[in-house]
């Protein structure tokens, strides 16, 4: 044993009260001195006085001694605590080293639990917790017009006059321009915006300058800022780019700046939250300011006045809107959405559900480790009881065991950080576009701190109970038990049983979550999209208005493209449409001939322009009438096709064929409904189809189109010939946004797939952990009952009876666990409500399957120990007694 410093010895006798001890010592001295003087014959008063005189100032001495002793005691306690801790750590490390199997199992389980939790936390941190990378991002709001729609130009100009709500108001919209004249023609993603937008987003140009407010005005120069990526890719990083003229959509634009890459350069539009822009273009409102009020497609970004809360700001918009309504006459209500909420969008429920799921995985891991520790504690009971009997304080024993669990937790946490690091990398690779700001997720100092705190917390969580329990061991009882060759009483068995029940319950709830998401995804995949995406490829074409100013020219170009594509080998059907399904698109109010609707209650529909062959190419079924044909040309009678949803909503109980409709801001005159087609999910897979009107391209030309092609073979194989067709018609026309419709469908499911995959991984993990826990507990019970089983068998019990009795123990635990888990899942189901599609959160089929799965797992986990019990040789068991 290590030699103790000398001063430790007396501290065992050190009273708890330093002041009293000091006083005692000094008083004893004074009284002894006084007694001696009395004995020498001095009168009492003189004796006391003389004693004091000899001593000096007792108060001063007492003060000095007290201060000294207090300091010393404090130092002593600190040193002792440190040295005890170091001793505990050394001892713990030695013990863990000596049990490598146990240590490895615990570290592995913890690494998975802590790693998964840390990885999910880093995703949540990036998406929800970290502020947006804009200056004073909390004051930025997205502004929507009436009915949560985008703004129109007149509305924007109206609201520019406000002085009470916004310190700044900016407008932007995404569009595309074709860059020509410098190598291959290329379609570029362009943001047209007011000068205030880059400033609100805190963008600093790398070189050059930002737009000036004067460049918002009509008739000013056309200027652009290049993204650094485009500048490098297209212009080789030419330092003399500033002042150069680019040809965009056949018009000259002057380059005024370069925008460096970075999070701030991502304009957060509601339509494309994370799409980077190639070009930033000044607003230069020309003809647009006279655009109709219901041509709503502008994103508006506002900075609230300093000190103005969201609620207050909303109140003020109401009063300003009232004034506008009196002046303009139409509904002017706007809504404000904090930018943060806009960016997170609908990923919040998924993230919260994932956080809950991963917390449950961690709890299961803790429970499992607690169970392992309990089993180990049972083995160590003798050692602990002996140490307690030899004088180790209970607190010290508890601490010793806790230090051991904390060591395990820290090693597990360290390994977990590696798991998290790999997990975050995997998530980023797996799910681009599924969770906002996923690319920003990293394992940084904050995440490491989180993992460390988590490790400590889990160490306490799974270590405390076994430590307290083990330290309560009674020596006599343990020794008696030891003599009988068993360990652990009924209380211990009950505790381990409880832990298994908790594990099974958590696992059940997680499996329910995974099952619900899996079934939702299944339902979504099985949803009738209204079209057939298989072997269909789409690409985007945009005609520069300078070279195709006339509607006839546009119509002619697109007709030519379609006919030449149709003639390509491997093409089944080629067609054009203004917007492909599942991505949203134009919509608006329309009039029905002979009907009047009150203001604000006008019929509303999705508007798609389509060429002949579109419904065939996408296999959208024709329900009544006819689809477009080559005869529906500009000079022919104007026709439209509507979908079933429109027919049912606006023409219930009658045939819409022969009726006339017209979009209000498309003053092309009334059009006759000639056909009804099936509903297509134009917005998203989970959103039921809205009423829709299809207009033939020939009668309502546009300068853009998606070319959709159904192929006979691999759709990607057709792409080179497509490009050749377009280039033959117009050398300067790029073919952009080439995607198969299957990819479009898959992209819409990315977030759900990610959520499902993670829930799946978590629940399988939990199931394996629960099964292992159950296996360990049942095996342990069999070992404990060896003698009893041996005796029973010696007395004639059949192997089958023994097996049944062991199995029933396991099944009883599972039954209770499943019951608790079902109750928990019923309650937790509400958090999945936003993610579940097509089934209820209490879907009985899911519950049934999960319960069955757990029962089978439990059976398998108990079967091995049960078989082992049944194969016991009673003779050898009794002999080993």
């Amino acid at each position, binding site marked *: 044993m290590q030699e103790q*410093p*000398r*001063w430790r*010895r007396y501290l065992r006798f050190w009273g708890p009260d330093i002041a009293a001890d000091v006083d005692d010592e000094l008083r004893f*001295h004074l009284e002894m001195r006084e007694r001696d003087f009395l004995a020498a014959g001095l009168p009492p008063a003189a004796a006391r006085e003389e004693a004091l005189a000899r001593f*000096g100032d007792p108060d*001063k001495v007492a003060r000095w001694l007290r201060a000294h002793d207090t300091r010393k005691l404090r130092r002593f306690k600190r040193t002792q605590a440190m040295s005890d801790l170091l001793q505990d750590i050394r001892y713990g490390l030695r013990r863990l080293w000596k049990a490598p199997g146990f240590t490895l199992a615990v570290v592995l389980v913890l690494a998975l639990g802590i790693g998964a939790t840390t990885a999910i936390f880093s995703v949540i941190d990036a998406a929800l917790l970290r502020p947006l990378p804009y200056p004073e991002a909390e004051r930025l709001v997205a502004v929507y017009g009436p009915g949560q729609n985008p703004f129109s130009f007149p509305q924007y100009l109206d609201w520019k006059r406000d002085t009470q709500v916004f310190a700044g108001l900016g407008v932007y919209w995404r569009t595309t321009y074709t860059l020509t004249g410098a190598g291959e023609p290329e379609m570029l993603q362009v943001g047209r915006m007011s000068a205030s937008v880059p400033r609100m987003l805190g963008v600093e140009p790398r070189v050059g300058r930002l737009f000036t407010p004067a460049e918002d005005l009509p008739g000013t120069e056309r200027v652009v800022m290049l993204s650094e990526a485009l500048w490098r890719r297209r212009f080789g990083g030419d330092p003399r780019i500033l002042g150069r003229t680019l040809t965009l959509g056949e018009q000259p634009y002057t380059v005024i700046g370069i925008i460096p890459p970075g999070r701030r350069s991502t304009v957060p539009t509601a339509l494309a939250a994370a799409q980077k822009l190639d070009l930033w273009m000044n607003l230069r409102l020309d003809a647009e300011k006279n655009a109709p009020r219901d041509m709503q497609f502008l994103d508006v970004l506002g900075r609230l006045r300093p000190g103005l809360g969201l609620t207050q700001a909303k109140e003020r918009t109401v009063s300003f809107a009232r004034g506008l309504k009196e002046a303009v006459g139409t509904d002017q209500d706007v809504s404000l959405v904090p930018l943060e909420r806009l960016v997170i969008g609908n990923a919040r429920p998924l993230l919260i559900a994932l956080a809950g799921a991963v917390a449950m995985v961690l709890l299961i891991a803790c429970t499992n480790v607690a169970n392992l520790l309990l089993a180990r504690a049972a083995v160590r009971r003798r050692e602990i009881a002996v140490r307690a009997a030899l004088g180790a304080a209970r607190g010290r024993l508890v601490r010793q065991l806790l230090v051991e669990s904390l060591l395990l937790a820290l090693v597990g946490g360290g390994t977990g950080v590696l798991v998290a690091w790999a997990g975050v990398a995997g998530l980023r690779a797996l799910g681009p576009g599924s969770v906002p700001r996923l690319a920003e997720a990293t394992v940084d100092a904050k995440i490491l701190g989180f993992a460390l705190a988590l490790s400590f917390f889990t160490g306490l969580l799974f270590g405390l109970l076994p430590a307290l329990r083990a330290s309560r061991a009674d020596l006599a009882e343990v020794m008696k038990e030891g003599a009988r060759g068993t360990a652990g009483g009924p209380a211990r068995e009950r505790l381990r049983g409880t832990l298994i029940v908790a594990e099974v319950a958590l696992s059940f709830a997680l499996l329910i979550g995974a099952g619900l998401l899996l079934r939702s995804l299944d339902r979504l995949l099985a949803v009738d999209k209204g079209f057939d995406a298989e072997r269909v490829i789409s690409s985007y074409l945009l005609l520069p208005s300078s070279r195709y100013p006339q509607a006839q020219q546009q119509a002619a170009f697109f007709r030519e493209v379609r006919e030449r594509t149709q003639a390509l080998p491997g093409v089944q059907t080629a067609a054009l449409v203004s917007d492909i399904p599942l991505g949203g698109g134009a919509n608006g109010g329309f009039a029905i001939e002979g009907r009047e609707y009150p203001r604000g209650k006008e019929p509303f529909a999705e508007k798609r322009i389509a060429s002949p062959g579109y419904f065939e190419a996408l296999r959208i079924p024709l329900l009544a009438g006819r689809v477009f044909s080559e005869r529906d040309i500009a000079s022919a009678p104007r026709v439209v096709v509507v979908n079933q949803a429109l027919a049912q909503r606006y023409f219930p109980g009658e045939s819409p064929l022969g009726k006339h409709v017209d979009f209000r801001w498309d003053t092309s005159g009334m059009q006759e409904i000639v056909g009804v087609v099936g509903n297509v999910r134009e917005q998203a897979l989970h959103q039921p189809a809205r009423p829709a009107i299809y207009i033939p391209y020939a009668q309502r030309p546009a300068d853009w189109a998606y070319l959709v092609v159904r192929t006979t073979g691999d759709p990607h194989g057709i792409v080179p010939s497509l490009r050749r067709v377009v280039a033959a018609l117009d050398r300067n026309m790029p073919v952009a946004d080439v995607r198969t419709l299957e990819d479009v469908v898959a992209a819409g499911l990315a977030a759900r797939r990610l959520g499902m995959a993670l829930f799946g991984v978590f629940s399988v993990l939990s199931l394996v952990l629960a099964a292992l826990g159950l296996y360990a507990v049942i095996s342990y019970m069999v070992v404990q009952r060896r003698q009893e089983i041996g005796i029973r068998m010696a007395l004639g019990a059949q192997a089958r009876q023994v097996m049944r009795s062991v199995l029933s123990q396991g099944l009883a635990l599972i039954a209770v666990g499943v019951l608790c888990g079902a109750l928990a899942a019923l309650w937790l189901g509400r958090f999945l409500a936003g993610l579940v599609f097509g089934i209820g959160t209490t879907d009985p089929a899911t519950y049934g399957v999960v319960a069955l799965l757990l029962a089978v797992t439990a059976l398998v986990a108990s079967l091995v120990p049960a078989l082992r019990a049944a194969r016991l040789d009673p003779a050898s068991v009794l002999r080993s007694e």
Partner: protein
Amino acid sequence: MGREPGDLLQGTLGLLILKALAAEERHGYGIVHWIQDVTGDVVQIEEGSLYPALRRLEDRAFVESRWGLSENNRRARFYAITREGRQHLRADASSWMRFARAVICVLEAEPSVV
């Protein structure tokens, strides 16, 4: 801290205390009493300064203390010299003796003043 009790005789007082404890363990008053007896009451120390001096010796591990019962059955704190204390006493005492002898030599030199 201002001027501590015992500053004056600090080194010497420590030496006296260690010497007082060389034979047996004593409480504070016992130490004072022994010094008084041995010197015939010539060396009178300020008794209050004894205790800080004892604490310092204890801090340097030259003495250790325990609570016990005095000869008149009262609770008293007893001090005992340690092995290190003895070594220190031996070294300190011999240097003191050399010094004292030197002083005596000086004082006894002709012409005598005593």
